[in-house]
């Protein structure tokens, strides 16, 4: 699998999170999922999007560790490398 850039992952994660409710301009790398009102179902859907599009399997334990948007982007980028 070809590596994807952090910018590409960031863009896709922001797009996915925005589809769950928060305004795109609120979705900064420092923003926490709690602040954005992103809940467990949203994170399940995000994980499925990432699996379908990047082949990166994120398990429940992986997701629990994630607090901020930047955490998610870093993890996905590292796994997709």
């Amino acid at each position: 699998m070809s590596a994807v850039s952090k910018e590409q992952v960031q863009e896709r994660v922001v797009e996915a999170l925005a589809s769950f409710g928060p305004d795109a301009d609120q979705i900064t790398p420092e923003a926490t999922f709690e602040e954005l009102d992103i809940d467990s179902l949203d994170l399940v859907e995000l994980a499925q999007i990432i699996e379908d599009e990047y082949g990166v399997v994120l398990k429940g334990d992986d997701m629990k560790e994630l607090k901020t948007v930047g955490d998610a982007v870093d993890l996905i980028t590292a796994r997709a490398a």
Partner: protein
Amino acid sequence: MSDAPRPWPPAGSALVTGASRGIGAAIARGLAADGWQVGVNYNSRSQDAQAVVAEIEQSGGSAVVIQGDVSSPQAPDAIFGALEDHFGLPVLALVNNAGISRDNLAPSLTDEEWGDVIDTNLTAPFRFTRRALRGMMRARTGRIVNIASVVGLRANPGQSNYGAAKAGLIQFTRTAAVEVARRGVTINAVAPGWIDTDMTAGVNPELLAAVPAKRAGTADEVAACVRFLLSEQAGYVTGAVLAVDGGLGA
């Protein structure tokens, strides 16, 4: 939520498991009449399934047969993949209808009789629902109906395995429905009572005396309820258990 009115049925197909005969065949015919493109799943009765598809096509509908034993862990991916490839559309309606019975009294019920019924009637609908929700959540629309049974609500001696599976299916339905409700996906159960099908052919007709309506139901009467739950108008009905039993469970 949506900006423009969406057509109904949406741009997706409907999968009915165990649709070669009985209630499943009636559901497949009914959904095709409602405009769904239908996947007619069967396990062993290829000719019956093909006859259902031929009948749908003669009526101007669109359907395809898809073989697969629903109890296999690989079945959901294989069957959804085949259906999505055939119509080029995601599956946006799922009817978990396939079911088996292995009746025996609890004191002599074997592990195999227990396990076969749980695998096919409870675990398979769970796996198919999980698979279906991937696409439905992303599409922000979808309809799932699980065919339960009055036996999941009211004891029927000789069917502790079947009753346990159907009761489990009802609670799975309710819980999953609540989890995904805000994605526009509904999950409901239909609980048929005594319906005139091959599955009830060997049952003592004296048991009909317990049915307030004093008659057996028909597969089409069950299908009518499923068609409603898969309609656009039923969008606010989720986590419900609709009994179709002539009052038996009331």
